[in-house]
């Protein structure tokens, strides 16, 4: 212990304390504070960069999901549109068919009516012709057998029977 105390140099102690305290203050101002700040800033930067990368990835995933969804929707819409178009086509065809049918029926009916009226007209004309023919026949017959009443009536009966259409 005595040797230790003998070795102790007060002057060196004073110098040492001044040097270390001075160095501490100088380094704190000019080195440690800027170094630690720079390291902290860098670490903060790395942390935020990692965080933003993570965020970007999540966003990317969201986007991808969105894309998927939009794609699906588009496909569904396309399918819908196609289906609708097909339906419209079918409907148009059906409508056209229906219309054609009704129109055909109408035409048929008109035709039938026309035929009927033609037929009526023809019948009427025929009747007229028959009548005139009958009168002619009657004339001729009358010219021959007007003398015989019985025969006359028989003849009329027969003629009438023939005329029945």
């Amino acid at each position, binding site marked *: 212990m005595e040797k230790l105390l003998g070795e*102790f*140099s007060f002057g060196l*102690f004073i110098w040492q304390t001044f040097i270390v305290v001075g*160095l501490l203050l100088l380094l704190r101002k*000019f080195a440690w504070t800027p*170094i630690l700040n*720079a390291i902290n800033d860098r670490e903060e930067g790395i942390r935020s960069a990692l965080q933003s990368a993570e965020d970007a990835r999540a966003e990317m995933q969201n986007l991808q999901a969105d894309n998927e969804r939009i794609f699906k929707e588009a496909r569904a819409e396309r399918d819908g549109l196609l289906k609708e178009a097909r339906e419209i086509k079918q409907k148009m065809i059906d409508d056209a068919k229906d219309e054609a049918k009704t129109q055909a029926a109408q035409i048929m009916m008109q035709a039938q009516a026309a035929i009927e009226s033609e037929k009526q007209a023809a019948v009427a004309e025929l009747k007229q012709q028959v009548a005139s023919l009958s009168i002619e026949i009657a004339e001729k017959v009358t010219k021959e057998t007007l003398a015989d009443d019985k025969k006359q009536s028989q003849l009329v009966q027969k003629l009438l029977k023939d005329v029945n259409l």
Partner: protein
Amino acid sequence: MKKKQYISAILLVFSSFIALATDVTIKDEKKSADLKSEIKAYIRHHLEDTHDFSIGSYTTDDGKKKYIGFSLPVILWDDGLVTFSSGKLKHGKAVHKVGPKYYKLYHGKIYRTDAEGTISYDANKKVINYKPLDLSMTKSVVTMLFTAALMFFMFRSLANSYKTNGSIAAGVGRFFEPIVLYIRDDIAIPNIGEKHYQKYMSYLLTIFFFIWFLNILGLSPLGINVTGNIAVTFGLALLTFLITNLTANKNYWAHIFWMPGVPVLMKFVLAPIELLGVFIKPFSLLIRLYANIQAGHIVLMSLIGMMFIFNNWLGSSLSFVLAFIISIIEVLVALLQAYIFTILSALYFGFAVEEH
């Protein structure tokens, strides 16, 4: 091929050492008995702080001792400031006159003497000459100033490199940045805690690099022994002590004087023990660093000295290998002691700001 080159290089170094050893013995044949005591004196001299910066000495043919190195300023307080170059003291062989006073260097200390430089002793062989307050810029002071300047420029350039290099360290800072981070993440934060560690960071970083650089410089062939000096380690430990106790919170003092959670009688028993602990903690710091570095230097120099004592192929080679291995271990110890000093300081700061 390369291995062979290494081996031959080592052998060359070996043989030159041996040659040197034989050379020394031939010259000092008469003194060979004194070799051991000479080495002992040399080691003791090395461990002391000196008033000049000399890396070695040799004796010329006409018996004069020459020193390789340079003088440093001597600053004394002896009823006023007294300054002169240490060269005037001629390594204790001359008396220097300043005004009416005479000064002489005796065993590393400057005493006031008479014109002839008489040193008087008391009954216990202690020097009774007046010893003025010595504030000289000794070898250790110069080394510390050099280390401080080196640290300042190195870490200043590291700090600047962040600005110029886009937040990435450049140059020598690339080596030191991970160490700074290690001190922050593995020494400061675990021991002090996230909340308070910042205010201690500057001190921890400063002492870690200061002690480490000085320890490494101590292993250089310049013959420096700063951290193996009790005054230096005392100063460092004192700073840790002051910072611990000046920044301590209420809880810390409560644990010393009125330990919570124990019976009242135990509180009275524990208080003096805890109070003693306040002083023992920094005291262990100063002794640990001092003793480790001092012991390392003694062991290393003794092994180097043994090469000259053995003075034969086998012994000297073995001593050399041993000295070489110890040197490598000392490099590790240099780092380890800086680390231990720093981590224990951080631990004490942690006690001071601990919250419950």
